[in-house]
C-alpha cells in the first residue's frame, strides 16, 4: 500500500468515521476491494484505533467538567515513567496522559461529571500513588477547539447562493 494512499484514506476517515468505503473508493479513484483491504490492515496494525464521535459536551444536556493536571513523579528503576503512567491511564475518567518535557512529567486530562469528582480523583486516586510527588490542577473553563475542530463559533459560509 502506498503511503500516499494510506494517508488519503486515513484523512478521510479522520474527518468522518461514518463515510462509506464505496465513497472513499470513488473519491480516491481506487477499487473498493483495495480500500477494504487497506482499512482492514490499518485496523489490525492499530493505526486506526477506534471510530469515535467528537462531542461538544458544553452543548449537551448533561455537562462534563474537564481538567488538566500537571503531575510530577519520581521515575521508577527499570520502568522509567511507563509503569506510573499506566497506573494513571487505567482510570476510565482519564481522557489522555502525555509524558512531557519541561517542569513537570505527566500531563493528565480528566473529564468527569462535576468539580467534586475532579477533587475526589486528585485527592483519592492520583495524589496517594507513591511515586507522585506533586499535582497542579487546572480546570478547563471553555473549549474553543478540540482535535482540530473549532467548537466555538464555526466560521459561517457567507457566500451568495449563485455567483458566476
Amino acid at each position: 500500500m502506498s503511503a500516499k494512499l494510506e494517508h488519503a484514506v486515513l484523512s478521510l476517515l479522520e474527518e468522518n468515521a461514518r463515510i462509506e468505503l464505496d465513497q472513499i473508493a470513488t473519491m480516491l479513484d481506487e477499487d473498493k476491494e483495495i480500500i477494504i483491504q487497506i482499512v482492514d490492515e490499518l485496523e489490525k496494525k492499530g493505526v486506526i484505533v477506534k471510530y469515535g464521535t467528537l462531542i461538544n459536551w458544553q452543548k449537551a444536556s448533561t455537562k462534563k467538567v474537564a481538567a488538566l493536571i500537571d503531575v510530577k513523579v519520581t521515575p521508577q528503576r527499570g520502568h522509567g515513567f511507563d509503569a506510573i503512567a499506566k497506573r494513571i491511564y487505567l482510570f476510565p475518567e482519564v481522557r489522555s496522559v502525555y509524558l512531557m518535557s519541561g517542569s513537570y512529567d505527566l500531563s493528565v486530562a480528566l473529564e468527569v461529571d462535576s468539580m467534586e469528582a475532579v477533587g475526589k480523583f486528585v485527592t483519592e486516586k492520583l495524589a496517594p500513588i507513591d511515586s507522585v510527588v506533586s499535582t497542579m490542577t487546572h480546570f478547563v473553563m471553555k473549549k474553543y477547539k478540540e482535535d482540530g475542530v473549532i467548537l466555538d463559533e464555526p466560521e459561517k459560509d457567507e457566500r451568495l447562493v449563485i455567483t458566476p
Partner: protein
Amino acid sequence: MNLEEKCSPIVRNMPPSGIRRFFDLVNSKPDAISLGVGEPDFITPWHIREAGVASLERGMTSYTSNQGMPELIETIRHYLQSQFTLSYEQTEVMITFGASEAIDLALRTLICPGDEILVPEPCYVSYIPCVQLAGGNPVPVPTKADHGFKLKVEDLERALTPNTKAIILCYPNNPTGAIMNKEDLAPIVEFVKKHELIVISDEIYGELTYGNKHTSIASFPGMKEHTILVSGFSKAFAMTGWRVGYVAAPLPLAQQMLKIHQYTALCASITSQVAAREALLHGLPECEAMASQYDRRRRLVVKAFQDLGFTCHEPQGAFYVFPSIESTGLDAHTFAEQLLLEESVAVVPGDVFGQSGTDHIRCSYATSLESLGEALNRIERFVKKQKNKQPIHHHG
C-alpha cells in the same frame, strides 16, 4: 426627462446577467443547497488573513504605486517562473482588482471600434459584455461536449475575419472544467502566430487541475509577445472577497494597460496586496490541500451523474461539472427551476454561459462533502421522478 435614454445604448441593450435572474429565484428558497456558487467553499487560510490584519495594525492604509507593491510584483514574477516557466520583467506585471479588472483592462487597451474578439463558449459570463463595453464585437466560437469542450483550431479558423484582433481563452474553464494541455494548445499557438492575434488568457483556475499541471499558452516559444496573461488569487487561495488579481503582458501592452488602471482604479487595496503576497509566499501547501479536496469531490460528482445516465465529461480543472441533461427531456432552465422548486437544489442552467451550453447545467463542487452528498441524492430523486412523469408509449 427619460433617464434611461440618457444612458449609453451599449449599456441599455446589455441584457442583465442570466445568473442574476436565477439568483433572485434561488433567494426565494432559503433552505436550498446551492451548487451554483462559483467560488471556493473554503475561507481564506488563516495565515493569509492574519497577514492582512497585521498590515492594518501596522497602519498600512495608504495607496500603493499604480502598478502595485513592488514586493508583490517580485513575488508574482518568481511564482510565474517557478510554476509555469514564464519570464516577466518587473515592469510587465500589474496588480488589479481581481482578474475581473484585468480582463476589462486588456479589452479596453486592445479594442478599436469594429474589432472582433473570438470568445470560445461556453464561457465566463463577463467576457461578452466587457468586449461590448469596450466597443468591440464579440464572436462566439462554440466548443462541443463531444470534444470535452476543448477548443479546436478549425472552429477558430471558421470564425476568423480581417477584423479579428484577439481571442479570450479560459482554461481550466468556467463553466465546463475543460483544460487545454500542451498538445491541445499547439495548433492554437500556430493559428495565433500566423494571424498575428493577441490571446487574452484567463488562467485564474491554473492551480486547480486534476491530472497534469496547467500549461500556460504564454510559455510556448514566441507566445509571450502574443499573450496578455490574466490571473488572480480568488480561486487558488480562496480569496474572492479580497478583490486582488494581476495581469502580465509584454511591456508595450503593459504600459498602455497601466494608463487605464491608473486613471480608473488608481491601485488595488493595500491590505489585499499584502495578503496576496503572503498567499504566494507561504500558501501553496494549502492551495494544494484544497485542490486535493476538490479532486475527491469531483470524482464523486462525475460518478453520480454518470450513474444517472447523464452524459458528463470528466472535468480536468476548476471546480465545475457540466453534465448534459438532455436525457431528462427538459431544457436547462426548466430543469434548474423544477429542481429548485421540488428538491431545493440550485444549479445554473448552461445557456447562461453561451448558446453551446444549452441542455447542460453547471454544478459547482466547491461545496462541503455533506452538502454535496445530500444535493446528489436529491438530484437523483428528482431525475427518477421525471422519468416516471415521461409519457409511456404503448406499442402493439
